[in-house]
């Protein structure tokens, strides 16, 4: 089931925003070249918030150990040892509101 997250206008170009979802772990929403990306607000390595990181050249940069995740594939670059790839949730902008598929434990790319 797609879950409503927030008005898409709240996600500025080049920014990452954290959104708390009732009953589920918080998610992060990023906008790059107009497109929206939704992913867990938790780096796969050390449980730190990715919304406190930033976007750079089409990648999410974790602000803690500077791992870089491609926005399209989630592939990790410059990882600390043991840091897996990032997963993304399916998302849509429906008439100005961001919806994402947050079902189950695993993110849906």
């Amino acid at each position, binding site marked *: 089931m797609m879950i409503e997250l927030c008005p898409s206008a709240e996600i500025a170009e080049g920014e990452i925003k954290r959104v708390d979802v009732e009953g589920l772990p918080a998610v992060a929403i990023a906008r790059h070249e107009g497109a929206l990306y939704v992913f867990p607000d938790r780096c796969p*390595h*050390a*449980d*730190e918030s990715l919304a*406190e990181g930033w976007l750079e050249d089409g990648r999410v*940069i974790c*602000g*803690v*150990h*500077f791992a870089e995740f491609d926005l399209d594939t989630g592939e990790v670059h410059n990882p*600390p040892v043991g840091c897996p790839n990032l997963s993304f949730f399916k998302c849509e902008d429906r008439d100005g509101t961001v919806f994402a598929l947050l079902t189950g434990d695993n993110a849906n790319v």
Partner: protein
Amino acid sequence: MCEGDCKGAAKGRPNMKPVYPKAGSYPDFAKLVDRENAQVDRRVFTDEQVYQAELRQIFARSWLFLAHESQIPNPGDFVRTSMGEDDVIVVRQRDGSVNAFLNSCPHRGNRVCMVDAGKKARGFICNYHGWSFGIDGALRGTDGKVYEKDETFEKAQIGLTPVAQVDSYKGLIFGTFDPDAVSLLEFFGDFTYYLDIMLDNDEGGTEFIGGAIKSEIDCNWKFPAENFVGDILHAFWTHQSGAQAILGGGVDLGKRYDELAFQASIYGHGIETNLDKVGNTRTLGYPDLVDYAFELSEKAKDRLGELRARAIGAVSSCTVFPNFSFLPGQNTFRVWHPRGPGKIELVVWTLVNKNAPDHIKEQYRKGVMMTFSPGGVFEMDDGENWEYSTRVNQGFVTRQQPLHYALGIESADMERDLPGHIHKGSLNDANQRLFYTRWAEFMEHDNWTDLQNGATAAPKKTATAAE
């Protein structure tokens, strides 16, 4: 920490607030400078206890040079330097301000930055356990999903120790570990009048070019500092051969020496100059530079007045207490970092006016390398002297013998309307006496009220600067 029968449980959570050491008072060390008889006891150059007192009294309190603004123009740009023996990171913040931090992780103390300088740093990660710090010094996170699960872990109060105060003056950034230290401007006093000779002689300001050159010299840090504060005397003998090679003649203080040359000192900072316009610039060996310095001298009369305009390229030298020195005209700026009583790490940069033509900047850069770098003719002359001035004091009997600092003891100039303690002639030990008097004030006093109102403070008569 828990001791006794608490079986490994800590009684309290750690207080990780920065600790800024309090100064003490070392009257016995202050007496090593004999102001009455213009003598200095050689223990100030060799004694380990004196050196440790210097780190506490002088280097943990004084405003120390950190960087030029031009070295770190953008957020995340940083340089690594020292304050005394403390390793420090100087980094431009996102809001454009500059902060400085101890380069030491609060976890096990390892350094968090290993390189000398860099651009657009994202932060600093300790190599030991992966503790990660933002460019604002705050702890961002750790490694291994361990601390996150420990509910007693208080991340928010942990960070790199900030240098207590950071401020800049006309492009030069300084810092002090003392939260109670007077402002940078009060620390300079009216000495800014003389700093402006180099820092404000042209619209557009200044910049460092060509990186830094580092070297080590096995000497006490005060020998180079006192040399630059007021010793042009050595140039006639020490630098004679180098001057011959570059200029085809000896060191020349100008035809109007008796009328023009002077030394000025405030709070131990000192400058000696002969006001001969281009004497220092000539030693770099480029005729174009001499022309540039002459033209600059003419143009700068509007900004600085006649007297200071004559000082821009003149035979001259300057030290900002305790260990930051430069040579007007030759444009070499340097810090003598102490590394024990018998060793320094020397870092030198070349300063130019931003608006100077590119080929002029390039000639300053090359000229400084040929003269005042580890392979430069003048630096090598000086280094050997300072090493032996230090090393001979290994001799037990040798180091009982006082040193003579009495040139010009009756040369005070009470008439010339310039800021600070003015002495006639640049060939004089006056500034060096006042440098060591300032040193003694730091040894003696544990508070800034006494530090700022002692013998080295500017005499009242010159409270208002000339011009």
